[in-house]
């Protein structure tokens, strides 16, 4: 299984988290961690999403990037491939 962390900037809509998690699950990724930081100044939300999957993280990146309320997705450079039992 590959572990990755995505840094996501989203519009802080009441519905954005649900959609983000729905796409993540449907595309075959398990959420292993999630933190969010609402911005004080703007209507933006910074989300750190850790996922594991056998699929390419690029696949999830592109699917999330398409979402209307998501501004930006960056794959964390420190992410590493780990073998899990």
């Amino acid at each position, binding site marked *: 299984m590959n572990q990755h962390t995505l840094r996501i900037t989203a519009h802080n809509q009441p*519905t954005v988290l*649900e959609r983000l998690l729905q796409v993540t699950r449907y595309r075959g990724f398990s959420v292993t961690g999630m933190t969010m930081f609402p911005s004080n100044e703007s209507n933006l939300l910074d989300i750190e999403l850790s996922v594991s999957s056998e699929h*390419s993280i690029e*696949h999830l990146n592109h699917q999330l*990037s*398409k*979402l*209307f*309320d998501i501004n930006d997705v960056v794959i964390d450079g420190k992410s590493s491939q780990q073998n899990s039992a």
Partner: protein
Amino acid sequence: MVSEKKETGGSVLFKVMQQHGVEHVFGYPGGAIMPIYDALYDSNIQHFLCRHEQGAAFSAVGYARASGKVGVCLATSGPGATNLITGLADALADSIPVVAITGQVPMVAMGSDAFQEVDIFGLSLACTKHSFQVRDVNDLAKTLHQAFAIALEGRQGPVLVDIPKDIQTAEVEFAVALASNLAKKEAAPSANLGTALTLLSQAKSPILYVGGGVGMAEAVPELREFMAATNIPSVATLKGLGAVNPEHEFYLGMLGMHGTKAANIAVQQSDLLIAVGARFDDRVTGKLAEFAPNAKVIHLEIDRAEINKRRFADAAILGDLKINLPALTMSLDIDSWRQHCSVMKHDFAWDYNHPGETIFAPAVLKEVSDLMPKNTVVTTDVGQHQMWAAQHMSFNDPSNFLTSGSMGTMGFGVPAAIGAQISRPDDTVIAVSGDGSFMMNVQELSTIKRFQLPVKIVLIDNEKLGMVRQWQDLFFNGRLSETDLADNPDFVMLANAFDIKAKKITKKEEVTQAIEEMLAHQGPYLLQVKIDAADNVWPLVPPNTANHKMMENR
């Protein structure tokens, strides 16, 4: 500031629709959408009352696909909204621009398990491109503008807007604002054009793999110019049918599970696949690891997420086909490959020889195709008749063949034909259906009656769920579980009950005259065509098998 006239939320809805050029909507009223229907009463927009919200959703899909405009459907909260879901899933899967408006219980009641309350926003997440729930009437106009813009931008798709009842009645100052601009969502076009040009110039046996994206991008002229310049052999997906001129010398027809033998063999033998608005769907590729095993891939796409999703692209060209297809134009030195494809096309041409008296559905559909007026819209349902229509009918534009491709939704054909007929009143519209699918939205015959729509229905009747029965025979040891429909109603009487003229034919010699009579009839018409229940769709690539290992009629 001078205030604008106060409007209700319901009235704002129709004003915004008019700004987007909406003339026709499909729907069904109910409690939580009554203020919107009250506002409709004063609107110039024409509403078509369907007899089930699923019918309204499919009519909106058919309308959008036949016209290139956004299709609009309306439903009330709870069951009205959930009945739209199948149509929205179908629109998402086939990338069709639809805006669905649902009524919702008043905001004070939301979250209280109120009468006819369902979380349609939550339900819509997996079957829309985007969805909104309006919680402030001041946001309503902007949200609706966004909904229309999202439905059409990039890869098209359905958008749902859920509007609580008190938002529909709330008053708001409505300024005639222009549609808001969308924040640019599309990735900047990127192209590996140099690599693509090199691959194309070096290819000995290239083939064009044409998908539904060509029609969605309105790039049919660019595709045909590219084909005229390159004279490249081509194949099409189910949703790509009509994009290629069917008379093109090196066009081999549909590929995939029920594709032509020539198309599937040529793709397997090719050394370069140029995928244009296509996504390597499992019904196209068969066993993915053995699909076009020696081919490099140039992938022209609007959706970044489709690149490398199922097949690695040696050159990916992201963006508008109308710009990117011409950029690839060159003359190709592939004479022997063209001749090889041409020979296969003739050697493996369809055989309409069918012994006995019973009617052969492929021959009927071929004849309908030959006799129907130019620019006829054909819709289908799902199953054997759908694949026979795809194989044996010819279309000169993708907007003339409307079929539920990715979702494979039975019950699509009749309501989609209703939407198509309303969007194109001067063109002939024919719904090709099967006796299983037809019954799934049969209530929409009432919509045909109500609006006197001259839709023609060709009902291919084998008293079976034919495609499932075929698979039971081939892959489930002939155990015919729940696929017999011998107790179907009398379809002629059924049609007559809706004031639809109808005729049943059972013998080959009746076919030509019956088709001519149907096409000459001014109003709606149902032609029931009885066929031999043992007839199968051939060729067939079995599941998880390479496309050249197709099963054929023997």
